[in-house]
């Protein structure tokens, strides 16, 4: 059974592993960006983003091209009637195919993530807080600095560490399940892709933030940590944010008053921090130019009145705990789907 | 060695056809004592026929005392049918020829001759049974 599975799978395996080998070779030959990097060369920048895109795509490709056709290909060609009448039970046939191809999927994603994570290590290490303090990095002060996402941020979390392994396993079994239920390769591929994409989008926003209760920190707003100030046309503050801790994934950034209620900052803050500029009535993301003494006074007054900023976040050091939990969730889902596949193959499909 | 053939349209069951062909060959002296019949597998392969059919035919021949199976060697002819009646064949054929000539002279065509022969043959056969 192992031989047959391998014989049927080797061309698909060669295609994916071949591409992975090419990508790994490119990354290794190009070499890692220097540590302490502040700005990527255009070539490194392309590799950096290519790594992200490919690592996100691989599980989808595995689900669509390895998972979905695994059973439907047999059903469409009628060969299930050949292979299910050898002296091997359907359950064992399915289990062998799931295990072997699943293992190949997991290994491919693991290797890819390993190479990409290794290559991007210096860039991730140079990541700054996701929101940048006023005056530190803004505008003309440090013109060469580039802001990189933290590895715990939604963009990178899914393409670093071990989560790609969980995604690949899940996408693969999802493809097989869709194939068994729909019995048509093309529709199974489409459904796999749609469901997997939906899960990829939903998990960072609906699941991951709540896996471990988020940390909270209430800080005084200072000219050193304020990172964003949005004012609408009538002069009221719409948005005020401070920088979160280094490498953290900031989930909430709210202004609270002395009683702890969530409020918007009083509108005089806007007036004193942002002198009226007729050419830009819509407000600006952050004040530019050197921080004036007046700004600091303004913020001191705000603090004296009891206004604070409450930051909700997942700290950087929870990266591995979150990775482990999310991977475990996806592996458990994969195991559940695999079990359903085995049941269906044994009892329903013919 | 005898080579069997089957006529799918004759209405005679395949096993009977095999039996008749052996008897026929024995009668005409094509098979003699000691000759070996084709193995069941050979007949099966040649005719694409059920082996049970061949076995049944051979069993029937064995039962009639015409052949004997020697396990592991084959089935052999033990008796011929070219018995005393063979000597009578010649004169009978002469008579039949003369009768056919008479029938043709009387204006019967081949079909009528055959019908006349078969009905008479059947009637006498039935009278013999009854």
């Amino acid at each position: 059974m192992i031989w047959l599975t391998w014989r049927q799978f080797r061309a698909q395996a060669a295609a994916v592993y071949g591409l992975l080998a090419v990508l790994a070779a490119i990354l290794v030959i190009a070499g890692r960006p220097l540590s302490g990097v502040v700005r990527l060369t255009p070539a490194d920048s392309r590799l950096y983003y290519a790594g992200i895109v490919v690592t996100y795509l691989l599980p989808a490709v595995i689900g669509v091209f390895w998972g979905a056709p695994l059973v439907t290909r047999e059903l469409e060609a009628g060969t299930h009637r050949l292979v299910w009448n050898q002296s091997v039970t359907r359950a064992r046939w399915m289990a062998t195919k799931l295990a072997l191809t699943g293992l190949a999927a997991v290994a491919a994603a693991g290797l890819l993530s390993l190479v990409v994570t290794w290559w991007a290590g210096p860039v991730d290490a140079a990541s700054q807080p996701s929101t940048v303090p006023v005056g530190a990095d803004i505008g003309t002060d440090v013109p060469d600095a580039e802001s990189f996402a933290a590895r715990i941020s939604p963009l990178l979390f899914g393409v670093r560490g071990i989560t790609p392994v969980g995604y690949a396993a899940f996408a693969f079994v999802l493809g097989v399940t869709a194939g068994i239920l729909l019995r048509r390769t093309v529709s199974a591929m489409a459904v796999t892709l749609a469901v997997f994409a939906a899960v990829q989008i939903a998990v960072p926003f609906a699941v991951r933030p709540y896996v471990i209760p988020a940390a909270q920190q209430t800080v005084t707003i200072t000219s050193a940590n304020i990172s964003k100030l949005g004012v609408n046309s009538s002069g009221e503050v719409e948005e005020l944010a401070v920088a979160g801790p280094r490498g953290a994934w900031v989930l909430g950034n709210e202004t609270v008053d002395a009683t702890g209620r969530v409020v918007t900052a009083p509108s005089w803050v806007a007036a004193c921090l942002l002198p009226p500029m007729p050419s830009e009535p819509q407000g600006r993301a952050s004040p530019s130019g050197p921080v004036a003494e007046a700004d600091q006074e303004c913020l001191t007054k705000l603090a004296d009145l009891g206004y604070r900023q409450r930051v909700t976040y997942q700290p950087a050091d929870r990266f591995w705990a979150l990775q482990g939990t999310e991977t475990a969730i996806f592996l458990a889902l994969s195991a559940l789907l695999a079990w359903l596949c085995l049941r269906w193959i044994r009892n329903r499909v013919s | 060695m005898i080579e069997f053939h089957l006529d799918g349209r004759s209405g005679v069951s395949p096993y009977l056809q095999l039996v008749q062909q052996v008897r026929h060959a024995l009668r005409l002296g094509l098979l003699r004592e000691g000759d070996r019949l084709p193995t069941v597998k050979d007949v099966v392969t040649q005719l694409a026929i059920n082996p049970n059919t061949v076995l049944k035919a051979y069993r029937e021949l064995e039962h009639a005392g015409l052949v004997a199976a020697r396990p592991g060697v084959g089935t052999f002819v033990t008796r011929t049918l070219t018995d005393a009646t063979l000597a009578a064949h010649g004169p009978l054929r002469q008579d039949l020829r003369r009768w056919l000539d008479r029938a043709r002279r009387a204006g019967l065509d081949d079909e009528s001759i055959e019908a006349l022969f078969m009905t008479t043959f059947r009637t006498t056969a039935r009278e013999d049974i009854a």
Partner: protein
Amino acid sequence: MTAVLRARQLGKKYRRGWALTGCALDIPAGHVTGLVGPNGAGKSTLLNLAAGMLAPTTGTIEVCGGMPGSGPAQLAKVGFVAQDTPTYAGLTVADHLRLGARLNPNWDDALAHRRIERLGLDPGQRAGKLSGGQRAQLALTLGIAKRPELLILDEPVAALDPLARREFLQDLMEAVAEHGLSVVLSSHLVADLERVCDHLVVLVAAQVQLAGEVEDLLAAHHRLSGPRRDPATLPADQQVISASHTDRQTTLVVRTEAPILDPAWTVSTVGLEDLVLAYMSRPAEAGPGRRPTLEVLR
């Protein structure tokens, strides 16, 4: 006599209706059984039930003493060559033999290779490039070399030309002669089965109409022709299978174990094909309570 296939009250319902109902069958071991009936009569359903590809809706089916498809030991006992003889298009002939060798404990590798060689199949050829007849032969090779107790073939010769058909049946019969396996094969053409089958099952409209040994069935059926008369006036032990009338003559196919003594009839034998056709064209008269299976008394 041990039954290689035993069905009781077997039924299978699809969404569009019953494909098989109230099927009671005993197919004895050591026979080549022909399963005939018009297209859509439920032949494939019955064979797929026997191979364990389908699960019955009602009743039971037992094949070689076990439940179809119930485990590796059961699967090893039953070979199934499905309709259209599926093979892996991307795999070579040699790959298929390897597949058989790896997946079957009783695999006869020498037999398989001998057959492939005799058939003139190139082991390196991909199955997708084989002709229909060659593919059927490859599938049959897998079925025979598995060395099952029962080999089930679903319309194996339907897509073959006459020569390939003859070769296929020759090889099948050779395997039967050599290994003593039981065979059940279906066809909608009686002519295909006439030579090779010694047991017959006629399936019409999801029900078994006739089952028994070919010789017994032929001996029990007669064609009667004579002056016109109502078939209802026949003796009770003569069951009318088909009747046709002209203004002066009546022709009947009847089933009876007793000799026919009425001198008004001209009695003649019925060929297998005519016999099957008589049952196939019989109006559906199987009402509730009537047992559709007619076993031959022995």
